[in-house]
């Protein structure tokens, strides 16, 4: 993607057709003036995502939108606004909080939900730990593997039959194989070998009681698309996505942010480096990249020239095995 050019696009890429637009009767025979309203890739992706969200609202009895305060879920919120305004969202926002989140992300989550006037449900891993359904030996270790437990408990508590998430197929190999409407059995499990065929834009949303569908409206978006869209829509995202000075330590080839959860071990030195986060997750396993990109345009430029994938650079928990994500998904992860 190193040669990707970013053009200045008009804020609205759909411009009215020229006056006196010629009507044609026979489809396919004549060429019509289409250039005036050619869809850009972002328009195409946006329209697809809106269509998917509306299908969920119309066909599922009790859907929810999983919202973390990260950039992908912030894009999801804008898409939901485009899908349902001037009405309220026909579903609540749900956050499964590991309590290992960056404070800037949580602040952004709360602000966005409040600004939108939408209902936000937060359920914490701590609740599951108190209930005894999650048993963690080391409370400071990454908690992503346990998120599935609290998510499934939350699904059961509210009786959600569909959960929309901001996962993308370009993120990870197992995700690349997952359907947009991904069926989960009553244990929340994904069976990759037994997925429903998905054709055209006709989605099968049917589940039996107790079963569940995970829906990924931005499946076809790439990291670059997300950044271009954030730029085009002028979306407010947590400050840690932009370059900032941060205390870090270097461990096993990764740059790790120092926090109350991560302190230097003997022999490790704290450095202050200009970094930004490409993904924001569990503080103990989300590594920033060294960067001086301080605005969306500069991030787009860096994204266009980077030679490392998003998760490869930033998610230590996905590097433990080729199949980490697949295994987590089989257990109910989104």
């Amino acid at each position, binding site marked *: 993607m190193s040669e990707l050019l970013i053009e200045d*696009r008009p804020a609205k890429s759909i411009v*009215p057709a020229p006056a006196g637009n010629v009507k044609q009767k026979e489809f396919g025979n004549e060429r019509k003036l289409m250039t005036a309203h050619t869809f850009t890739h972002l328009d195409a992706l946006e329209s697809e995502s809106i*269509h998917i969200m509306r299908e969920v609202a119309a066909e599922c009895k009790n859907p929810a939108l999983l919202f973390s305060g990260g950039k992908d879920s912030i894009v999801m919120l804008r898409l939901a606004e485009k899908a349902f305004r*001037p*009405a309220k969202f026909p579903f609540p926002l749900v956050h499964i909080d590991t309590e290992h989140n960056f404070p800037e992300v949580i602040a952004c989550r709360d602000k966005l939900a409040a600004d939108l006037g939408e209902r936000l449900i937060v359920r914490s891993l701590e609740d599951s730990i108190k209930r005894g359904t999650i048993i963690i030996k080391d409370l400071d270790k990454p908690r992503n593997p346990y998120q599935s437990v609290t998510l499934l408990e939350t699904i059961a508590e509210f009786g959600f039959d569909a959960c929309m998430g901001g996962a993308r197929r370009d993120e990870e*190999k197992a995700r690349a194989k997952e359907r947009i409407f991904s069926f989960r059995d009553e244990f929340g499990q994904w069976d990759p070998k037994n997925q429903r*065929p998905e*054709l055209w834009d006709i989605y099968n949303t049917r589940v039996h009681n107790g079963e569940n569908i995970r829906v990924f409206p931005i499946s076809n978006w790439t990291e670059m*698309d997300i950044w271009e869209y954030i730029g085009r829509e002028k979306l407010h995202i947590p400050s840690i996505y932009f370059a900032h000075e941060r205390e870090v330590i270097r461990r096993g080839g990764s740059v790790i942010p120092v926090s109350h959860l991560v302190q230097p071990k003997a022999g490790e030195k704290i450095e202050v480096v200009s970094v930004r986060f490409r993904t924001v997750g569990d503080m103990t396993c989300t590594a920033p990249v060294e960067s001086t990109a301080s605005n969306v345009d500069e991030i787009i430029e860096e994204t266009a020239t980077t030679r490392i994938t998003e998760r490869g650079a930033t998610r230590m928990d996905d590097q433990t095995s080729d199949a980490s994500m697949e295994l987590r998904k089989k257990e109910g992860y989104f």
Partner: protein
Amino acid sequence: MDTMTQLLRFITAGSVDDGKSTLIGRLLHDSKSIFEDQFSAISKTSEKRGMAAVDLSLLTDGLQAEREQGITIDVAYRYFATPKRKFIIGDTPGHEQYTRNMVTAASTANLVVILIDARRGVLVQTRRHTYLASLVGVPHIVLAVNKMDMVDYSQARFDEIVTEYKKFAAQLDLHDITCIPLSALVGDMVVDRGESLDWYQGPTLMEKLESVEIDHDVNTTDFRYPVQWVCRPQTDEYHDFRGFMGRIEAGEISVGDEITVLPSGRTSKVKEIVTYDGNLQTAYAPQSVTLTLTDEIDISRGDMFVKADYLPTVAKEFGAMMCWFSETPLDKNRKYLVKHTTRTAKCLFSSVDYRVDVNTLEQHANPAVNMNDIVRVAMKVQQPLAFDHYTRNRASGSFIVIDEASNNTVAAGMIV
């Protein structure tokens, strides 16, 4: 502003022997879309398996079972971009479930690349891939005659293959076929032209992918607007607002246009085209919008707005070509569900007329319907559907069949 990036979806059809993985790898590699950490991961795996070179097919094998068994189970989607376009590749495996996977991936594709080994020429599988592409109505075909390096870059050999292929393709409903000689291994005519195919004047594969005209892949004339969701905010500000949300599947609509609501047949006029970014004067396929009307008429999800100048058929019976996906054969005594645009209705199969042998195109009468079979059926639905012939309008001519007991998607159909 006139160089806005478009999105092109394409699939590759061919077996490993034809060099499919090598071709995809070459496209990604030469367009600099393979990341270092991906490349290092598959290099390690290739080495572990004792392979001499890096196996690029590992890039798309996402599941544990696939990596363990060295097979590909399912359709994988890959993404790359050039300065001219964004691309989504649907990579379909070539094993026994081929029909199901190819039909699935082809349903959203603008273009299919059909790979041929120049030494072997047009094979049974070439015919199968081409037939399926025409059945699903993929608008553009690229015949990639690969391994030209193995036939001394012979123009005569290329011409011979093209002649044979075009003779076969003439029997099918295909309109845009481009034949390109190339070598995925060496890299000739994939992204770069190379130096060995001077006699060929046409586009490279990448040039074709970047330039193929896709604006007309959707029907731009017959307005089709299936209502997805009725928006009633019921707030003070939007007290009387009643918006009909949906995606324009074909054609265009302007404020003031008269529309007909199907199946009821009632008419009204478009009052506003509402979007989050402001109201529009005109909107086009495939935009997702919200329409308000000048009259209060009873409209709900599953209804379709059309214009009176070209009406779809509204009926409870129709014929279709159908691809059966389920391991459980079709049971003609059972009722199924059909989902067509935004309407779901009970249906039954009044007859199964014939099965098409995808290798020979021969028709076999009164068949049983098993997984991967392509059959001609006659169907009856409980409620009327507003539909078009699939070749005229993909969106209003397609449907899926759902088994109500298992909730599985058991078939996909194209109305004829």
